[in-house]
């Protein structure tokens, strides 16, 4: 007992050691379990780990080394660039375990796929030196990616690549009024939620429909349809929305492939991010909002000014710029977590944005960038990425985009641990009816052109 206490005290007094990235260790242990113990005393194993992110490869190699050693293997990490199977045979290894690792796009998972190849010479196949003594095996393991693993798995941007890539993610019928990225099920699976005049759709990161709920109920007429949308914890459900002209907001719960009513809201859910949700109120009879921004539902909240707002966006991971609110006067207000104004270094004109915009920390520097549509009416539209706290904020301006961008949202869709943004461009569909092209804006190097 005393010995145990002493050992505990020694542990407590020693330098604090951070836990290794759990996903790397979990996946390595799972893969080692798949490999199993060394049969027939063949313990010598050459380990070759490949990953597009070098940091992930090195850490995973260490974790696999430990996990395989615990299974009884004598592990030799592969060095150099020689062909691995030949190197294993030349070095007298019994096995070659060649592992490829990477983050599953959109899923937030670390995936390992390995080939366990016998490398010892077969007595019966002496005349065929390259022949394998027994058939090889494919082994694999997965683990939900934690932030540390996501950091390790992040690839370097290729030299000369633009700050971010923009590509079409999919197309929805109708005009997208509001977008949100988040976890609508509470199952740690990112998804995109879109509201159009006719429906609410939960979409997978590749824009495939997961659940669709058609709009119901009578709305007061509004000349330009609009909606507020947020994903977060809203009581019985994680999707909250209010359509312009509706008397109140509604909360929806994603259950399987169904979006079900789960409650009502006496405020418009403007957005939700790392700093929490933000609520507002539609100006009566319109599709724009009063200058009401509250952190809690407060139907009695008074407008801060006579201004009206196109909407607000939340930084998915918070940070010094937690929210941004765009007025119908096209003045963008940057707000901290406490809704206090954040001073931009650049002149207001440099941060001018159209009504489709989103905050998203694309480069992972802890401060959200502003992904914005053009502030100038007249097609074609362009996507601009702005660093609001920089003196020269323009990081990227896209070539002309087909359509008109009127909605946007930020969040991690590619599963690399960094925010992406999705903007919806209103176009004319092939049938002549309105449609929306969903555009992914991401700094994930896997999306680099």
């Amino acid at each position, binding site marked *: 007992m005393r010995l145990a206490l002493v050992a505990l005290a020694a542990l407590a007094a020693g330098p604090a050691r951070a836990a290794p990235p759990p996903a790397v260790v979990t996946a390595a242990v799972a893969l080692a379990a798949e490999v199993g113990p060394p049969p027939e005393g063949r313990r010598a194993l050459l380990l070759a780990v490949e990953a597009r992110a070098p940091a992930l490869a090195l850490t995973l190699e260490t974790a696999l080394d430990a996990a395989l050693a615990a299974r009884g293997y004598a592990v030799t990490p592969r060095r150099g660039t020689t062909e691995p199977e030949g190197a294993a045979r030349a070095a007298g290894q019994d096995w070659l375990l060649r592992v490829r690792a990477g983050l599953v796009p959109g899923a937030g998972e670390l995936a390992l796929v390995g080939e366990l190849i016998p490398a010892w010479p077969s007595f019966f196949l002496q005349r065929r030196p390259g022949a394998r003594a027994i058939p090889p095996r494919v082994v694999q393991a997965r683990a939900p990616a934690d932030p540390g693993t996501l950091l390790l798995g992040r690839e370097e941007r290729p030299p000369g690549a633009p700050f971010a890539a923009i590509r079409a993610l999919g197309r929805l019928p109708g005009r997208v009024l509001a977008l949100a990225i988040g976890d609508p099920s509470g199952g740690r699976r990112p998804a995109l939620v879109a509201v159009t005049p006719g429906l609410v759709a939960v979409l997978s990161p590749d824009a495939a429909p997961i659940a669709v709920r058609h709009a119901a109920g009578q709305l007061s007429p509004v000349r330009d349809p609009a909606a507020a949308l947020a994903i977060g914890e809203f009581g019985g459900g994680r999707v909250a929305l209010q359509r312009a002209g509706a008397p109140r907001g509604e909360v929806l719960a994603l259950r399987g492939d169904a979006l079900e009513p789960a409650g009502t809201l006496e405020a418009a859910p403007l957005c939700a991010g790392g700093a929490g949700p933000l609520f507002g109120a539609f100006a009566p*009879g319109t599709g724009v909002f009063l200058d009401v921004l509250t952190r809690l539902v407060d139907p009695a909240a008074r407008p801060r000014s006579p201004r009206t707002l196109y909407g607000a966006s939340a930084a998915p991971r918070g940070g010094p710029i937690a929210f941004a609110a765009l007025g119908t006067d096209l003045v963008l207000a940057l707000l901290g977590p406490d809704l206090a104004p954040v001073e931009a270094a650049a002149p207001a004109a440099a941060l001018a944005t159209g009504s489709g915009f989103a905050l998203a920390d694309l480069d992972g520097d802890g401060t959200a960038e502003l992904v914005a549509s053009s502030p100038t*009416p007249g097609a074609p539209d362009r996507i601009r990425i702005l660093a609001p706290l920089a003196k020269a904020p323009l990081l990227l301006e896209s070539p002309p985009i087909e359509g008109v961008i009127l909605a946007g949202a930020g969040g991690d869709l590619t599963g690399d641990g960094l925010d992406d943004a999705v903007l919806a461009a209103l176009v004319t569909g092939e049938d002549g009816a309105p449609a929306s092209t969903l555009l992914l804006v991401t700094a994930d190097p896997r999306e680099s052109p």
Partner: protein
Amino acid sequence: MSRALALLAAALPALAAAGVRPAWGGTLRIGLSGPARAAGEGADPADLLVMRATSAPLLELDARGRLVPGALAEVPAAEADGRVFRLRLRPGLVDAAGRRLGAADLAVRLTSLLSRSPPSPHAFVALPIAGADAVLDGRTHTLSGVQILSATELVITLAFPLPQFPLLLATAPAGLPGAGPFVLAGPALAGAPLRLVRNERHHEGRPFADALELHARDARVAARLLEKGELDLVLRPEALGSRVTALPALTATVAALNPDRLGAGTEPLRRALAAIDRAELALRFVRGPAEPLAAIAPSALGAGAPPPAGPGGTAGAPPPQIVLLADAGAADQRALAERIQVKLFDRGVRVSLDLVDGATGLRGRLAAGDFDVALVPVTVLAPDGALTAGQIAWATRGAAAARRVMTELAAPLEPGAAQAAADRLARELALVPLVASGLRASAGPALEGLVARPDGAIDGGRLWRLGGTAP
């Protein structure tokens, strides 16, 4: 005119908003050639703008020229070979005061178009309805062709087949007064702008602007105010500033001859008028967008030049001296009359001009037959050949002629046959189509939502200012 309609859909989206959603609020100031009237019985573009802003059209025309529901819940289908139409009003329709509007109000509106004395220029809209003559003549106050079925439904029976009748339901005069996106803030005062304030109860929702102010401004003043941002939109013939869109040339100017006075000289004079170079008239003597008008039914036109004067009538000399009546208060009419005076002089006809100031005076002289030749501007309400010809005939020759023209041109005809029929009718009615002219919409830098329909109408409820409100 037809070419203008075709170009319109492609030209106007340039002024529509892109990348920025509409904003509500503020007062939009619109400059016009003349003072806007609140009474709603005028027929010039300013009057029609006020009428459209303060009434709810039964049907609307989309950008492609297709009919879509307005105050009606659906576009009525023709029954009985185009003689019967069942109209169903949108449920819950109310006027700006909150009063429920129903089929009885629509019946009253249609009847009121016919029951004014002197007749309203907009009576043409209800003219095809059975029993219109009895109301026009003051013999009754109800239209026999209108049968109310329920609070929101009625059946209209026409006096003759007219499949194009729903297009008349999309005109501003057919709209339900008091149910438009705006209402009059008060009586119009001399020298003061006409102010319209928003109707919160409009069936499409609150208009974007809180108010419209309509100012009469000459071209120079309008250009200066537009540049200073003190006007948001100018609707005048001239192009002002850099954001200019030509609206469809929908004001048809025709020469109406009076056979009762001209006698045998009518046809030679008609031929002399028809021989005037109408392209030159359109190009040099009309300030706004214009094109030569080759027929009284524009959709029967090809894209080519006006047809020759055509055969018909007895050969002979035109009368040596005539009086040309024109409305000097209407755009370009004086210039056109003076040019015609010169051209007819070349053909041996001495013309003295008789200028009246205002459409009411012109209509009175026409009704009394007190003219030799009259220049009559007609702002066409419905973009359809038969209806245009019918409206021109109504404005110049009265109800019977209008009905006859519509009856003959309403049936589907081959393009060549339609043009021949229109030419024949013009000859028989002693009409010479001259030019079609329109206005230009000159927008200020912040004005958005300016989309003119194929019938030339601008929905004031959709106008908004980029960057929000202004005091």
